[in-house]
């Protein structure tokens, strides 16, 4: 079984490598464009996938409402930007305030969802919490649909086309560049938070052993809330960025993006933070190549096929161990 897996892996890698190099030589610019496009996608997935993986790491729950938190981030930014735009504020101020409000609102929603839908079920069977998560997801979608509108709303990019970037804009736009840079910065900050700060260490400790964490004086409930808040903040940033990129949003954008990011988290090894980032980049880049070279209309089918393949051959994901290292 193991040998078959290795052989299969080598065969697939060989074929992909061969086609990859052939295409690269045939049209390097197109190849580069696809690669960068994949990087942009992967960055967005990573910003969302972090929330899934951190929450899973700490309470072993797949927070299906997480995609909605991302959607609420984008929606908040749209509302704030529209209102401030009407008032004629400077565009840089609008961009900053829109992001700040998006993050604050998403965090508030993430925090509240945990308190209402998951905390009361912490000792209940896992299936109950999962159903509660799906319910929360549907509730938030419908709530936003009713409070706003079911139609797509145009979202004017908060990131201007920088003049100095003009010569390279045909390869990668300012918005895409901003997405990649923001993601890198967020990842570094988050990595430092988890590695070096007291709350970060407490998050890791809580993921490893909740009872022991409470015995050293950690308030486990606060740590879990913090995890939801941090995951919501990165998702909100992802929401604003992708709205800038795509140019329109509605109440339903969280569904597919959430699922894709979830697949990325599983691909990397759910519960592992580096795994979520790696899984996101791998998914984003391979999706980009797949749609660029093969069938663009099967983009989503591709991601779900990947999910099925991982679940069959390597359910613990790329970086997942048998006992996944959490958070």
């Amino acid at each position, binding site marked *: 079984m193991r040998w078959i897996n290795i052989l299969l892996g080598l065969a697939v890698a060989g074929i992909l490598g061969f086609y990859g190099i052939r295409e690269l030589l045939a049209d390097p610019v197109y190849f580069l464009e696809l690669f960068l496009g994949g990087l942009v996608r992967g960055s967005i997935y990573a910003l969302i996938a972090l929330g899934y993986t951190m929450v899973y790491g700490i309470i072993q729950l797949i927070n299906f409402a997480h995609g909605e938190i991302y959607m609420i981030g984008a929606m908040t930014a749209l509302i704030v930007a529209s209102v401030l735009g009407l008032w004629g504020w400077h565009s840089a101020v609008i961009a900053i305030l829109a992001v700040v409000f998006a993050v604050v609102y998403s965090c508030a929603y993430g925090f509240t969802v945990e308190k209402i839908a998951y905390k009361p079920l912490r000792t209940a069977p896992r299936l109950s919490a999962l159903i509660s998560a799906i319910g929360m997801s549907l509730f938030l979608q419908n709530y936003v649909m009713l409070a706003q509108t079911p139609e797509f709303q145009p979202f004017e990019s908060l990131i201007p086309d920088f003049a100095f970037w003009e010569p390279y804009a045909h390869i990668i736009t300012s918005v895409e560049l901003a997405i990649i840079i923001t993601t890198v910065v967020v990842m570094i900050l988050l990595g430092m938070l988890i590695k070096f700060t*007291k709350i970060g*260490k*407490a998050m*890791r*400790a809580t993921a*490893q*052993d909740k*009872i*022991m*964490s*409470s*015995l*050293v*004086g*950690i*308030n*486990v409930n606060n740590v879990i809330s913090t995890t939801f808040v941090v995951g919501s903040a990165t998702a909100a940033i992802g929401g604003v960025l992708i709205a800038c990129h795509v140019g329109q949003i509605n109440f339903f954008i969280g569904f597919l993006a959430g699922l894709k990011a979830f697949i990325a988290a599983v691909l990397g090894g759910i519960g592992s933070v580096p795994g979520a980032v790696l899984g996101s980049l791998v998914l984003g880049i391979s999706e980009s190549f797949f749609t660029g070279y093969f069938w663009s209309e099967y983009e989503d089918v591709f991601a779900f096929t990947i999910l099925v393949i991982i679940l069959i051959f390597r359910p613990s994901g790329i970086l997942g161990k048998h006992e996944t*290292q*959490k958070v």
Partner: protein
Amino acid sequence: MLKLTDVHTYYGNIHALKGINIEVSEGEIISLIGANGAGKSTTLMTTSGVVPAKRGTVELNGEDITQMAPDDIVKRGICQVPEGRRIFPYLTVAENLDMGAFLRDDKEGIKEDLDYVYGLFPILANRRNQSGGTLSGGEQQMLAISRALMSRPKVLLLDEPSLGLAPIIIRQIFDIIQKINQEHKTTIFIVEQNANLALKAAHRGYVMENGAITMTDTGENLLENEDVKKAYLGM
């Protein structure tokens, strides 16, 4: 200092503690001995607030802590080294110790205590950047005790510190427990199946059977007691 009065604790329908009374005075070493499943660990978990009592009270210096959350109980100075040590396996030795000092902000004092525990167990200093899960059983016990000391506890609860360790390591651990008691006047409450060891180290002891306290006396007297000898000392 620490006083359990008529404490009843349940796991669902299982009546694990059936009205126990235990009193520990300041600066004392107390041992609680009993067979596997007697309710010793439950006694400590109830004291720490992890499995709160259904009836009865747990008091620390007159304050009722029965229904307090575990972290609030740690704040009041009761710290537990649980059964099986429960080292955070993916945190380094140094990070495990940081977690012991979670509730403290006094950088100077933390540094002092860190030097103190590295002095007690120099091997931990050598291993400070190694993850906790890779330590041997004896090293993990040393780390677990050190982690608890990092909170500067007034009362230290130890659940089977000798479990699964080589005799020479057990000796070392018990020497250090007594040293901590003498140097810092830390009140110590030890739970053990190894009755001989625990009663020798203790000022007073309690014997527990099926969730109830059946005997209490000084450590020396219990060691001489015929029933204790038969049941727990294998004589």
